[in-house]
């Protein structure tokens, strides 16, 4: 081996984590760019501001409307917004993971967590393929947790409120965090901020979209009992369960990966759950609801 060759390898070895980080970031960007033209069923049939009220919350309808003012194709704008939030979730996830590790930094675990959160088919399926905005909501939730950790409770509440105003399914996290805060005797002010943010943003959505208050309120809660593919009540319990798995698939799938990286003995169940969700979502993406 030449001296310069050895020197070069040793240099790269020294910076290996950073080199890998850059490479993973580039590859993850390319992966998202590749599917930029893919039209999902949801994009074709449900992605317009005046879609029926059972499809979107008022604030999400407003968000869709605002996208039409951004130069470029809405599909591209939306996919890149989701893509950016995919990266944000991965980076914030690593920061959260680091804060949980009691100062014992494991760069390999952090790199693996970052990579898996970016290249997992589950993340790609929900995000840039299906254009569900779970990454945006989940990014807000992780950021809220980090602010909460530093006792910035109002910002925490506002971020959780934005997440819930976009997708009301995330309100379950407000409840879980509320119980946790009450149990730990931590501050509860953020719950008021979160609820106020949801109400305020929904009201803005109602006014700008020109819909009635009743329709706006219905848009916040209908996901619990209305089948989005038909607009009618769920036909049965099984249909309800299937849809709830779909609504919470991203949250569970991504959350479980982060959880496994904090508690390594749960690698196997976390991986099994994650792959199970990938397969479940893949079936729906290919063959419909």
């Amino acid at each position: 081996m030449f001296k310069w060759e050895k020197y070069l390898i040793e240099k790269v070895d020294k910076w290996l984590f950073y080199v890998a980080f850059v490479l993973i970031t580039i590859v993850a960007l390319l992966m998202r760019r590749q599917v930029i033209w893919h039209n999902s069923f949801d994009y074709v049939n449900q992605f317009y501001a005046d879609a029926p009220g059972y499809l979107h919350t008022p604030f999400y309808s407003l968000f869709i409307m605002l996208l039409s003012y951004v130069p470029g194709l809405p599909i591209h704008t939306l996919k890149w917004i989701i893509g950016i939030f995919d990266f944000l979730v991965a980076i914030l996830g690593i920061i959260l993971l680091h804060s949980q590790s009691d100062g014992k930094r494991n760069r390999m675990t952090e790199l693996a967590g970052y990579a898996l959160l970016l290249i997992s088919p589950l993340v790609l399926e929900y995000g840039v393929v299906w254009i569900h905005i779970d990454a945006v909501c989940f990014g807000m939730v992780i950021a809220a947790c980090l602010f909460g950790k530093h006792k910035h409770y109002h910002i925490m509440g506002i971020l959780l409120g934005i997440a819930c105003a976009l997708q009301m399914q995330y309100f379950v996290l407000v409840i879980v965090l509320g119980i946790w805060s009450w149990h730990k005797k931590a501050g509860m002010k953020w719950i008021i901020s979160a609820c106020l943010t949801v109400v305020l943003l929904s009201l803005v959505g109602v006014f700008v979209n020109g819909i009635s208050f009743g329709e706006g309120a219905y848009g916040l809660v209908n996901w619990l009992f209305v089948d989005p593919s038909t607009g009618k009540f769920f036909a049965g319990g099984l249909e309800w369960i299937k849809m709830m798995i779909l609504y919470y698939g991203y949250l569970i799938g991504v959350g479980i990966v982060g959880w496994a990286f904090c508690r390594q003995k749960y690698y196997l169940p976390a991986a099994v759950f994650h792959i199970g969700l990938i397969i479940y979502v893949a079936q729906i993406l290919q063959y419909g609801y």
Partner: protein
Amino acid sequence: MKIQDKYWLGILFVITLFGLWLRWQGIWYESGDFVNCLSLWMQDLDGKNLSALAEYNGDYNMPYVTILLLLTYLPLEPIVAVKSFSILFDIICAVAGAALVLEILGKERGKKVFITAYGLLFLAPVAVMNSGYWGQCDSVYVAFVFLACFFMLKEKYPLMMIFWGCAFAFKLQAIFAFPVLLLYYWKNKKFSFVQFLLIPLTMEVLCLPAIIGGCSPARTFTIYFSQMKTFPHMYYFYPNLWTFFQDTPYYFFGLPAIAGTFVLLLLIAVRILKVYDKLDHTNFFPIFVWVVMTVLCFLPCMHERYGYMLETVAILWAVADRRKWWLAVVLQIITFLMYAPGIIVEQTLVPTKMLALCYLFAYLLLTLDCLRITSNGKK
């Protein structure tokens, strides 16, 4: 010769005879590959000279087509000739694999280990069905990969590169194990990147008859690019993750799947490079199996035959470390169930998605095992 040597030779002879008998049972079986490709190529080449190689328009590389041309001169039925060549390499592959295990475990456990590895490899269902029934030649490139690894561990690098070149000259699938060579080069720093040039050089040398016959020297390499575009499907009968994405368009998702596999390999590489001081006999099998199974599990468009190297090396790992028997058994069962429809039975025995679930679970267990092994390496 000692009596004990005669005893071992006798066992070797019996194993070989039994393996040949098993293959003979399927010698007249005409697989789809034989009917649609091999027999037609043999007809085109029959009795002609080297210029016939220039007219060949199939998707196999020229060294194998040169062998097919030579086989047409034998006084044998084409099907027997083609399968005999593959069976011959089954024996070479089993010997090379056994030698590799022996190199890893050390000579003191000699004959017993050699015969166990040879026997299990030569009698493995995947080996018997691949050559004896299907008429495929996967044992050829795998034999060369085993020889390359053998010389890598012996630190005879020019020979190692020549055998890598031979493996690539026969099948592109040798690339599944190529990251192992790159890791070895990067970590051990024992040979220069210049030696890698021996690989394309060997490929060209093996293609010389075809080049003399009028083929372009670039054909050796360009044929693989055209191969990569032949089957643009996420799933192509190998029970990996993409079994669940059978109706997903390849032109959108093929590249992200390949990119995702690259990232996983990168993570494995970072872990191995950071954990081990050097790569040697002690960590060869876990690294090799982990890398190859990762590639097979996540690359799209994998044919069911592409797992041949993994399925055989898993047997060798089981011989070297008995606790790993489960992986070899699971892979043999899955492969048998994938190969069987059309050869042994009419219908699919187990739904492919079920096999894919088992395969993915085996991969997860292997990954956890390899994470544990590499953690021990750290200590």
